[in-house]
């Protein structure tokens, strides 16, 4: 009986947590207009979240492009289809790797700093002080960061894809010696602007919302102790990565189920 009870308690607790997060999310959406009115705060956060993540995103994108081009070449050249190298790299970056890898890096680079920052604000009772001054900390602290994350993520993802394609171009045309004209024209023939690029952007926007929300929620709900902040930061990375991967499967199944 104890076993059954423990299962029930766990399910109830996780459902309660989910419901709490959902209510928090709805509340956050409710205060977004207030944050939009003070757009300067959002700009500062875009700088902290987006600009500061630029270097790691560009470096990863470039190396992913290099490596994809090199590896795909060995497989494709067997079938005499080395010219399709650009297409393979382009589709895998624009559809999958761009949004997903960017989201994982984003969770590690920007999500953790958001959680730690807000967690420490809470530990230092800055959030409580704001509430005492009748300032809603969700509107003043959380909402600008949420908007900034949702803006930055699609931009970072498309930059990742673009720099990856450029990296593949360097390897394919410069190193391997594939004809540059074929490299681009095959991509232009087969990659669809709405179906492939558009869906990739939609994916990255969804991931941006997920990663930023998880980071903010973990920071806001953290235990106000050093251990609590450390635990919340870890949970941010774990939960956002798993949520991104799970959501990616659902979105891919919805978007690309028909050939």
């Amino acid at each position, binding site marked *: 009986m104890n076993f059954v009870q423990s299962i029930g308690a766990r399910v109830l607790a996780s459902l309660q947590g989910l419901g709490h997060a959902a209510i928090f999310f709805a509340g956050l959406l409710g205060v977004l207009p207030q944050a939009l009115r003070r757009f300067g705060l959002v*700009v*500062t956060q*875009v700088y902290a979240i*987006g600009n500061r993540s630029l270097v790691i995103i560009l470096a990863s994108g470039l190396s992913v492009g290099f490596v994809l081009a090199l590896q795909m070449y060995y497989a494709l050249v067997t079938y005499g289809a080395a010219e399709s190298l650009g297409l393979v790299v*382009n589709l895998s970056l624009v559809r999958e790797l761009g949004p997903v890898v960017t989201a994982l890096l984003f969770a590690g680079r920007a999500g953790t700093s958001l959680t730690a920052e807000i967690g420490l604000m809470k530990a230092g009772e800055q959030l409580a002080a704001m509430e005492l001054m009748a300032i809603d900390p969700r509107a003043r602290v959380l909402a600008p960061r949420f908007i900034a994350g949702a803006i930055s993520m*699609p*931009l970072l993802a498309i930059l990742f894809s673009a720099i990856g394609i450029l990296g593949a171009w360097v390897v394919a045309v410069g190193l391997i010696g594939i004809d540059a004209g074929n490299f681009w024209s095959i991509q*232009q023939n087969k990659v669809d602007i709405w179906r*492939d690029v558009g869906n990739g952007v939609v994916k990255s926007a969804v991931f941006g919302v997920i990663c930023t929300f998880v980071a903010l929620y973990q920071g806001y709900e953290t235990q106000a102790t050093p251990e609590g902040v450390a635990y919340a930061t870890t949970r941010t990375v774990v939960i956002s990565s798993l949520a991104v991967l799970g959501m990616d499967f659902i979105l891919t199944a919805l978007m690309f189920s028909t050939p």
Partner: protein
Amino acid sequence: MSKKGIEIGVGLFVLLGLAALLFVALKAANLTSFGQADTYTVTARFDNIGGLKARAPVRAAGVVIGRITSISLDPKSFQGVVTMEIERGYQFPKDSSAKILTAGLLGDQYVGIEAGGEIDNLAAGATIKQTQSAVVLENLIGQFLFNKAADAGGGAPEAKP
């Protein structure tokens, strides 16, 4: 960092992101078809469309002049109805014919249009009368085997046990 510096940094970041989107859209994808230039719709009926798919190109003399918008089955005649849009700059005579062709040995299938000789042009929404279906490999092999059998049996295939 000063407020101005931050704003310049964010502006650069956003512009860089938009430039990347533009690059992917223009250089690495088919933004040209998004331009939806002026097109007119033409339909053609085929006995068998083979592996033709929507969004496959329509070519004349190998040049892409349009795309296939939809494919459906006519429930009365049991023919495949292929609807395509052709750029308005390319006008074809009324008696032009449409064929389903394959690019290379394993490539994708597309519709090839061959111009006819009439003076009047195809109007928007017109139907191409002369069509040639896709070559289905199974039928081809079947025909070949039948011919072989006919040759071997001296015109009497039922002579074999």
